[in-house]
């Protein structure tokens, strides 16, 4: 205990500080409690149909007897009674009408390199306006953004009021020409994606989406009409893995990926390699074979290093040798652009010419050090698959 006597200045300073704490803390707590109560009341009223409902009605659903509905956005096809919310936590049956809870309510807005989606053959070096809304229709045990994805969009704080026209205008004001939906699952806020993308298309702004593609064909087709590129995470290659680790199913994901490819939209795939879960070389070869057969060898494939997160904290991060191994397996199987992410520096960060094997884009992580691609071609003349010019997009 310090028994030194206080100076006059210290006495007044401490007294003022104590006074401020004793008066302001209860006041702050009360304000917080009032805000929470008001929010909960508004939500209850919205759901019961008495108050102002959520802003946007969902397009892809059907009405059933007794005010029940069935959602058709994702393969779960949730059937909801009034007041119930979909598995994705993002759509609620309000008195027989299905509403999107997260429309124009993003929880993350930031500026990122496009390589973070990841895209390595689509406008490399470009900065994008990233937008994420809470909620997800998967339950991946290793989710690295679970604080946002495993919550209802309106439960997150802060929620930014960002209607589509404002999102596009802010992107342009910031001097950016691409909007990215990432961090959480765009399928959970499909309506917002479609509305922003339509607005962006009018303004000549590109839209890209990072998704798990656990989505119905109709919804992905709708998205393909307005989205310029998809970074799809193909999480594994067997139903058990999808079911036990991700709480989803593989088949609909493969269908959606094929759909994207057949619509002619730029596609890059990512597989997070979790040690002892999906790092089997034979399985990777099997995946590579499927990719070559159904999508072609030019679709870039990223192997991302797993880092212990969320409910898989007991597993160590992926050893570099494992990543090297699966990358070699994919290259041997004939995939032309195979990358390693979440690990830098690494030989798999760079883009190489499939013909002369020269390094074309040199990176440290997301940072581009050198880009030798000119007009979409390697100096050897070989055409490199991808979109390398940031000219305004064409309307499809």
């Amino acid at each position, binding site marked *: 205990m310090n028994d030194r006597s206080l100076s006059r200045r210290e006495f007044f300073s401490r007294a003022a500080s104590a006074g401020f704490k004793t008066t*302001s803390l209860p006041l702050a707590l009360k304000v917080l409690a009032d805000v929470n109560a008001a929010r909960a009341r508004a939500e209850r009223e919205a*759901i019961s149909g008495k108050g102002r409902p959520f802003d946007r009605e969902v397009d892809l659903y059907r009405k059933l007897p007794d005010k029940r509905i069935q959602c058709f956005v994702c393969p*779960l096809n*949730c*059937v*909801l009674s009034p*007041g*119930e*919310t*979909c598995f994705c*936590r993002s759509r*609620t049956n309000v008195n027989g009408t299905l509403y999107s809870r997260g429309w124009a309510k993003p929880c*993350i*807005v*930031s*500026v990122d390199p496009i390589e*973070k*989606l*990841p895209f390595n053959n689509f406008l490399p070096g470009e900065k994008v306006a990233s937008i*994420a809304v809470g909620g997800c229709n*998967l*339950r*991946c*045990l290793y989710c*690295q*953004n679970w604080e946002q994805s495993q919550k209802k969009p309106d439960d997150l704080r802060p929620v*930014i*009021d*960002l209607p589509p026209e404002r999102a596009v205008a802010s*992107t342009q*004001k*910031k001097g950016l020409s691409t909007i990215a939906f*990432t*961090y959480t699952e765009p399928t959970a806020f499909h309506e917002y994606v479609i509305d922003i993308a339509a607005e962006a298309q009018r303004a000549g702004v590109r839209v890209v989406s*990072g998704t798990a593609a656990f989505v119905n064909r109709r919804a992905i087709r709708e998205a393909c009409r307005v989205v310029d590129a998809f970074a799809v995470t193909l999480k594994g290659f067997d139903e*058990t893995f999808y*079911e*036990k*680790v991700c*709480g989803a199913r593989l088949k609909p994901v493969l269908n959606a990926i094929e759909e994207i490819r057949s619509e002619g939209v730029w596609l890059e795939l*990512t597989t997070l390699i979790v*040690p*002892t*879960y999906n790092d089997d070389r034979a399985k990777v070869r099997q995946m590579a074979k499927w990719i070559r057969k159904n999508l072609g060898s030019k679709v870039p494939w*990223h192997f991302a*290093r797993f*880092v212990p997160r969320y*409910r898989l904290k007991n597993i160590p991060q992926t050893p570099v040798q*494992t990543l090297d191994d699966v990358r070699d397996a994919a290259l041997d199987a004939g995939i032309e652009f195979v990358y390693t*992410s*979440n690990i830098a*520096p690494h*030989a798999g960060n760079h883009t190489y010419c499939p013909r002369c094997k020269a390094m074309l884009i*040199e*990176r*440290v*992580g*997301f940072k581009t*050090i*050198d880009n030798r691609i000119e007009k979409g071609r390697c100096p050897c003349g070989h055409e490199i698959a991808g979109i390398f010019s940031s000219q305004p997009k064409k309307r499809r």
Partner: protein
Amino acid sequence: MFVTSLCVVVALLAGSGDAVERMTLDACYQEISELRADINLLNLYNGLNLTTKQIEGILKEARRVNRKGEKILSGGEEQESTLRERELLEDLRTHLVKNKDVPSTLRARYDNLQAQRHQTHLKRIGTVGDRKRTAESAATVEALLTAAQLEVLRTYKPCLIPPRDLRDPVRVGQSGSDTHYAPLIERIRSLPDFAYEAHREKIIDGLVKAAEKHNGKMEVAARSEYAERVAEVLGTARSMDEADFQFNKQDLAREIEPDDRIEAIKEQLAASGIARFERQGQIARFFLIPRAIPLLEKRLKMQKAFARGDRVDLDGIEGAENCRDGKCSIDE
């Protein structure tokens, strides 16, 4: 008489105890400094993700350089020279305490020792020929590393706990900022007006002090310029609406991040063409020193012995929440 003898014995014992403690402490300091050196090197090696082939190549060069060094200067030689120096200095002190002239024999010993120390120094830093060999080895190691690895090496600052971008980079699809100033501005922005106004000076002063702590004391003019910049950025951040702020927070954070002087000097060096010379010096310091050899050997052994774990039985794990029966809804 007895009491005096006892005191002498006690004093001697106490004195020897001090000496023992001193020695233990010195050994501890030495050990700490060695541990620090090892940790600094390991952080760099981990951050570079060296391949087995690269480690083999680096080890070959490190062994080559250090084998030469061993022949030139053995540990025994250095110890002997140090002991001789201590003896000489003790003798010199004895003469000076007695206020006597320094005898010619002592002068001769001193000259002799000086010459020997010069030789030892030359051997320690390497003769011209050895320096050339070290430079050759550094060039070989440089050729083994990729441009991206050299970029990491260039910006590497020895550390005990590596920064996030070296050990744990922001990952694909992961939310989060690459600067800790962004969340800080966000917190300051969320302060109510009355609280911000009441503590404005204190907040700005705190940020200036933090910058000085990180980057060294600023001159008066630079300090006030930085404080003005901080005040302006905080004002801008507080006046923006939420959407604009979210789009701009990283830029705002970068505006108040203190300039990294060491980085600026490195960039000047790079621009002046000394970069290659500096890089080879770095390579020699990090890869060609004796400490590097056992660390790289262990790393190589570990990488060669790498075996993938057995495939997990997915049916045996507590799986993710699932929706197979169509009853997926979440009740309010």
